């Protein structure tokens, strides 16, 4: 008997044939990443959870439209992106009103909890597009080409958003006087 890891493509193939259990295994592999991506994008726990459920339901309903199972991660995040932006567009006025106050702290010498708050604050001050670029690159490890597919925009736009976001984050999290260079 030969054991091998059940890959996502196997689960996708079975799920396409109507095996709900196989799809549930697939969901269990991706739900945490999708939830955290949505949580950091929409910044509301209940919204992120509701959106996660919607994402996986839509993915199941459209699984037969996925041409290449190897592209499942980018395809799944594309669905998540669309769901999140539908909500963000609906809630935009409120989101602007509840923007977090500006902080001027440096990350050097901060305690873990302070660091977490500083990072959340810094991410919260980015625009939705910039924050999403950081989430996809830094937290999800997608390549620029994959990010362009997920966001449905050119690679140059992806790079521009990410680089601007990094400059802004750097000002808060690694200011000149607290930088690594001594």
């Amino acid at each position, binding site marked *: 008997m030969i054991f091998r890891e059940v890959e996502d493509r196997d689960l996708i193939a079975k799920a396409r044939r109507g095996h709900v259990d196989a799809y549930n295994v697939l969901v269990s592999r991706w739900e945490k990443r999708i939830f955290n991506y949505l949580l950091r994008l929409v910044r509301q726990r*209940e919204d992120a959870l509701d959106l996660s459920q919607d994402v996986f339901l839509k993915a199941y309903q459209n699984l037969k439209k996925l041409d290449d199972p190897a592209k499942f991660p980018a395809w799944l995040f594309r669905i998540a992106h669309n769901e999140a932006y539908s909500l963000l567009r609906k809630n935009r006025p409120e989101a602007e009103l509840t923007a977090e106050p500006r902080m001027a702290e440096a990350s050097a010498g901060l305690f873990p909890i302070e660091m977490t708050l500083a990072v959340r604050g810094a991410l919260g001050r980015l625009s939705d597009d910039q924050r999403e670029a950081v989430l996809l690159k830094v937290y999800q490890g997608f390549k*620029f080409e994959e990010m362009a597919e997920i966001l449905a925009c050119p690679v140059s736009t992806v790079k521009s958003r990410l680089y601007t976001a990094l400059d802004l*984050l750097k000002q808060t999290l*690694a200011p000149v006087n607290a930088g690594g*260079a001594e």
Partner: protein
Amino acid sequence: MSCSIDLKAYAVDELPKNERGVVEDHVRGCQSCREELDRLNLTRSALASLEDEEIPRRIAFVSDRVFEPRWWRTMWRSGPAMGFASAALLAAAILAHGFARPVGPAAQFVDPAQIEQRVEAQVSARVEAQVSARMDAAVAKAVNEAQAKQAAEFAKVLNATENRLEVQRRSDLATVQQAADYYRKQMAQFLVASNEGPVR
């Protein structure tokens, strides 16, 4: 910084190996780029400190048997079985008609195709009516069960959320209190130092 090196692409692992070597060689000899890269790495480290949260409620789907086709529906959709049933019904109808019809002076010609159509239409109507009624009942039952389950889950989640928010609120209050104490101590020390004046 006037160098044309893409430090950000390097910092986010987007450069191929040969280009990474070029950047590393450059950074060794360029103070400003080295400082810039240090700041980018510090930023990435800070971002990496944000840990993933566990999903509060696992997501799973179920195959609902209510919506799976029943045996009679399967049979209804099965070509050979339906053909056999139609033929049997047609034969029964012809026999019944032969025994029951009034004997008249002249036998009327009856088209078997017409009879078959009528019988099929009647059978279809009855079966569809039964299917519809049973489906409605099954769906109503399933919806009621789902609503009851959802209401219970909602109450549970609401309770858990309230508890979590209360714990978080207390934690925040404690943090603020600690920060205020620390600030007061610092201010007191500063005031004492100011009153004492410079040490000669």
